[in-house]
């Protein structure tokens, strides 16, 4: 009887699977238990306190780059948000720049001009086979060895390039500028409806309208006209060299520029490859058929090739965005105050709460990754073939 039970436990697939899983869970629980015991013992022995109360304590350090006001009297929690915003800022700017550069390089890689094509190829091979950290450090070193502030290179007498960053005029908003901004957004919404209306009209009459031209004219000129109607509510504060530093204007720090260059140049190489393979994946017949219908080459690209190529491009593009966001954590190597450098580095050293801080940082990155994949999946669904499995 008993042997029959054991026999069933081992030779019947269902019960054996249950047994295996129970064992795995048991070992896993034991493993976790031992680690927790050991950790609390170690923590106690070394006199490290735990808990999240440190978040309310004074951070006591300054952060050079922050989007929200931050002084050394602020709390660690605020330092966390400063770091998070810096991470998001570099990720968004990097993704934007990398996408543009990647698409340009990807299209050049398919050019009929042999020399052009191969310059792009050399760029791709050299950037994607060298560690991104090395590239970031290299660009940052170059930026740091630019001329000193006294000998800053002027660009049109408005921008100044120096080893402490790019000094540029900062905008001063006056009353009425919000109307210009609102006008800009209303113009965008308006053009959206206008496009639909003109498309319908085109389908009925067959007459083609220069939709793109009309819409861009509306989007560009509405804010400009409003700007003059409101009496030029925007002024600039120009940086002026006074003594050892620039007064006025704003500065883009070399840490940010270095990160931006490194991340976007590196990721653009990968994006260009996905763009290239996406365009290649559209079968030649599609192009020939649309040419046979009499479409011009830019219309062939815009209406036939690109929409079909996007289906193939979006999934790998998503993972490139994720990679870029994760690589933005390398800011610590050059002192860009992102999540890992500020909160995960300096706060950790000051409070010693390694477990809490590292798990907070990890969870934040996990959340960012999940959000990016969620949005890209939604977008991906909208560009896929309708009715495909």
């Amino acid at each position, binding site marked *: 009887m008993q042997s029959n039970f054991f026999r069933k436990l081992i030779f019947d697939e269902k019960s054996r699977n249950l047994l295996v899983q129970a064992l795995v869970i048991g070992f896993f629980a034991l493993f976790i238990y031992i680690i927790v015991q050991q950790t609390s013992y170690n923590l106690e022995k070394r006199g490290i306190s735990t808990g999240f109360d440190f978040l309310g304590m004074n951070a006591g350090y300054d952060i050079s780059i922050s989007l929200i006001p931050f002084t050394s009297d602020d709390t660690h929690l605020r330092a966390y948000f400063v770091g998070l915003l810096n991470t998001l800022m570099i990720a968004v700017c990097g993704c934007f720049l990398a996408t543009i550069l990647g698409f340009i390089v990807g299209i050049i890689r398919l050019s009929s001009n042999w020399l052009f094509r191969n310059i792009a190829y050399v760029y791709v091979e050299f950037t994607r086979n060298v560690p991104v950290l090395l590239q970031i450090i290299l660009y940052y070193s170059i930026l740091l060895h630019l001329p000193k502030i006294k000998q800053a290179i002027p660009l049109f007498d408005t921008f100044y390039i120096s080893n402490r960053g790019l000094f540029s005029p900062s905008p001063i908003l006056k009353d009425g500028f919000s109307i210009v901004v609102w006008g800009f957004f209303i113009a965008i919404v308006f053009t959206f409806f206008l496009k639909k209306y003109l498309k319908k009209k085109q389908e009925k009459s067959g007459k083609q309208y220069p939709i793109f031209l009309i819409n861009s004219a509306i989007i560009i000129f509405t804010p400009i006209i409003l700007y003059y109607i409101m009496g030029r509510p925007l002024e600039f504060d120009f940086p002026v060299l006074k003594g050892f530093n620039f007064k006025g204007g704003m500065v883009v720090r070399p840490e940010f520029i270095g990160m931006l260059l490194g991340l976007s140049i590196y990721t653009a190489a990968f994006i260009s490859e996905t763009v290239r393979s996406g365009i290649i994946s559209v079968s030649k017949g599609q192009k020939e058929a649309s040419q046979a219908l009499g479409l011009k080459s830019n219309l062939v690209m815009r209406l036939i090739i690109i929409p079909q190529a996007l289906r193939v491009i979006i999934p790998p593009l998503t993972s490139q965005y994720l990679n870029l966001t994760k690589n933005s954590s390398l800011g610590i190597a050059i002192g860009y105050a992102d999540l890992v450098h500020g909160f995960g580095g300096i706060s950790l050293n000051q409070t010693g709460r390694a477990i809490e801080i*590292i798990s907070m940082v990890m969870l934040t990155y996990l959340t960012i990754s999940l959000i990016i994949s969620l949005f890209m999946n939604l977008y991906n669904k909208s560009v896929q073939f309708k009715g495909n499995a």
Partner: protein
Amino acid sequence: MSTTLTSNFIHNKYYKWIVKNLFSSWVNSILTIIALIFVYEVGSFFLNWAIFEADFRTNFQGEVITDRILCSKNIVPGEYGACWAIIYVRWDQFMYGFYPIEEIWRVNFVYALLPLAIVGILFDKIPYRRFFIYFTFIYPFIAYFMLYGGPGISVVGTNKWGGLLVTLFLGVTGIALAFPLSIILALGRRSKMPIIKTMCVVFIEFIRGVPLITLLFTANVMLPLFLPDGVNPDNLLRALVAVTLFQSAYMAEAIRGGLQAIPRGQLEAAQSLGLGYWQTTRKIILPQALKIAIPPIVNTCIGLFKDTSLVLIIGLFDLLGIGRAALSDMTWTKLYYEVYVFISLVFFIFCFGMSRYSLYLEKKLKTDNS
């Protein structure tokens, strides 16, 4: 006479190629000319800097360069090219880190055996492949004994390791250790047992969702907290743990892709022959899946090899770390172009080699199967 000459010229294949690829239209011709100027400018600038005007071991006065002051660049500012002497002077550090000079032959020995250990895995048509594969399995023990030391030879602690040695050690060992782990993870992710499947999915997605640097921090700061007294792995070993876990998650996804590509009929046929799960997996599914998965696996390996440079952030001296250390030396600061270009070139050679190998495999697989 002249007509035959021109027609000869027009039908010349080089002429045809040039017209078709460089001057097919007005726009193309202009682009070609711009590109030619660009290539000439960049190329001549780089070659002048890197070779023709560069110092290698001596400056233009013939003095042996031992520090930056003696570089021609410093004697005649802005007139001379690269000063490669920094690489020459620091060569041992770049290659072996702080390994004792009298023991360097041991590292060289391990370096020399490395190709023999890999060649059996990379190419399937070499003679005596079986013996090469046997050697691959013995190699880690030889390498460990030679590098770390043991009976008969002196012990060299891992804190003395550095440069290319650390980069290669982390890269090769990380990949080798991650491989079996990733197979288990990939199989677990496709398992019918819900608990095992969930654990594998959570592990893989967690690792893929966080940056490697946070894993390295975890290993560096938190691993000592998890372990009992007396067990205190050194820095390099901690980094290796993080790198291995990281690589195993990415590799598992590559292998999963291979597993998914196997037609269901293979599994059903194997089962109807009476093979159990492990037999089916080991003899039917895995050999086919791994073969398909090799190109993506190689791609993850390239990624890992580049990512080993991150260990400099937790204070290890890999190739890049040694480069930074060389630049922080007062006698050599400002030679960052030379150092970083050199390190880039080393990484480029390894990564480009791997990506070419992956392309070669893809081509071979295509002809094999169709």
